[in-house]
């Protein structure tokens, strides 16, 4: 029995009041947000939870998987025949290139040896299947079905048959997460194929990208093909990336607004190739680093391009 001033009977004990609990959990969440964004030290937690939830994810993937299998089962014969024909035709047109490839590579090696240049290492690829698009509506990412166990590492480039689609940004034991080129945080160093003009391209979402920091009078045209420049040390040089679709040259701004659309099926699903790690670039000379960094001193240094 409760006496005035005595201890609360257990029936009325409900722990701390709701507002206190709200403040506690909300501040905990905000702390997690900051830690994850600023220091990126929570990857281990992600890895363990994802691994533990792997069976759950497979179960959730079942309905989609079944639908795809059923759709594949009921594909019409004529569609398959047409696809087969198309593939055979493509293979034939590519044959002469492939046949000459070995010969050209040998020749290239000899020429490089003559010129005393470093040999280009052949980069091997690994075929992966895009499982699904990540559910997060704020970013553009897809999940592929190869992970740490298959030798995938963060930072590797992902291409399909037409060009680059993105870069591996997170790896789990059996899956990996690929940030698409159209993701807002994704940037890639490119050059215009026609005249070799170099630039940085960043995603703006909704299957468009933007060529940044090019002067309003830069020598680009609508329809120009953009390929990787290889300067970032991540992507091999010469891979097709995008095509310029719109140029807005407004003299009141320092830079032109140049929209591009990706060549590869960035928002499409299918088989992709994860390219192995590129050989590291030679180290940047000391004096060059100092020369670049000194004007930035005292300012906030922008986040590095991942």
């Amino acid at each position: 029995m409760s006496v005035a001033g005595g201890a609360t009977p257990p029936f009325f004990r409900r722990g701390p009041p709701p507002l206190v609990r709200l403040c506690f959990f909300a501040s905990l969440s905000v702390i997690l947000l900051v830690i994850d964004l600023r220091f990126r030290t929570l990857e281990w937690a992600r890895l363990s939870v994802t691994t533990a939830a792997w069976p759950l994810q497979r179960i959730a993937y079942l309905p989609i998987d079944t639908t795809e299998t059923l759709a594949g089962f009921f594909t019409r014969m004529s569609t398959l025949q047409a696809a087969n024909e198309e593939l055979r035709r493509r293979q034939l047109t590519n044959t002469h290139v492939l046949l000459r490839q070995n010969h050209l590579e040998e020749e290239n090696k000899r020429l490089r040896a003559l010129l005393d240049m470093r040999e280009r290492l052949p980069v091997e690829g690994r075929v992966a299947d895009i499982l699904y698009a990540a559910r997060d509506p704020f970013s553009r990412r897809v999940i592929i079905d190869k992970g740490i166990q298959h030798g995938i590492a963060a930072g590797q480039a992902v291409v399909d048959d037409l060009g680059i689609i993105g870069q591996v940004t997170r790896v789990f034991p059996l899956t990996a997460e690929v940030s698409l080129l159209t993701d807002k945080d994704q940037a890639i160093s490119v050059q215009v194929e026609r005249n070799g003009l170099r630039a940085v391209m960043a995603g703006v979402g909704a299957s468009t990208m933007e060529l940044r920091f090019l002067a309003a009078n830069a020598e680009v045209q609508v329809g120009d093909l953009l390929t990787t420049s290889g300067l970032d040390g991540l992507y091999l040089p010469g891979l097709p990336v995008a095509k310029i679709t719109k140029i807005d040259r407004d003299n009141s701004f320092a830079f032109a607004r140049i929209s591009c659309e990706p060549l590869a099926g960035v928002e499409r699903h299918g088989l992709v190739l994860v390219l192995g790690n590129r050989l590291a670039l030679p180290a940047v000379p000391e004096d060059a680093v100092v020369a670049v960094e000194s004007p930035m001193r005292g300012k906030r240094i922008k986040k590095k391009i991942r």
Partner: protein
Amino acid sequence: MQPSQSSRRILKPVRSWFIVLTLFVALLLNLIPLGSFPGVPDWVALTLIFWCMHQPQRIGMGAAFMFGLAMDVLDSSIMGQHALAYVALAYVAAGISRRVLWFPLWQQALHVMALMLATQGVMLLARLLTGAQYPGMLWFLSSVTAALLWNPVTHLLLTPQFRPEDKDFNRPI
């Protein structure tokens, strides 16, 4: 049927394992990879609202935080984004539960829509402040779907608590 407090039937007490089970099933439903298909409701948020309204003593901000973290990891979004939104959701849902449950179901659904929109607003704020891109107006459609689903979800989740209906005219309840 006892979808609202104004109904005159008495429900059986809920079992704890059933609450946990439904939340895990909701998590599973959320994991189905439908990509950025618009109008897919956030099942975990909907189930959390339901239990926070009907059983505020059993389920609250602690569970909301844990399931929020699970969603953050499995959704590959930023840690704490769902957790923050779900904790706020659980707080408000438990706070307004005594009032809302007296309304008929379609009016409850309006409350649910407002709650879900506020949850999405918290997530949007957390992500836009950290420099993500705006997902577009269609993203908010999922709150409308969740509100439309409030009626079936209520009946489904209350099913194990219903007593068999035997009319006894001596006892009106």
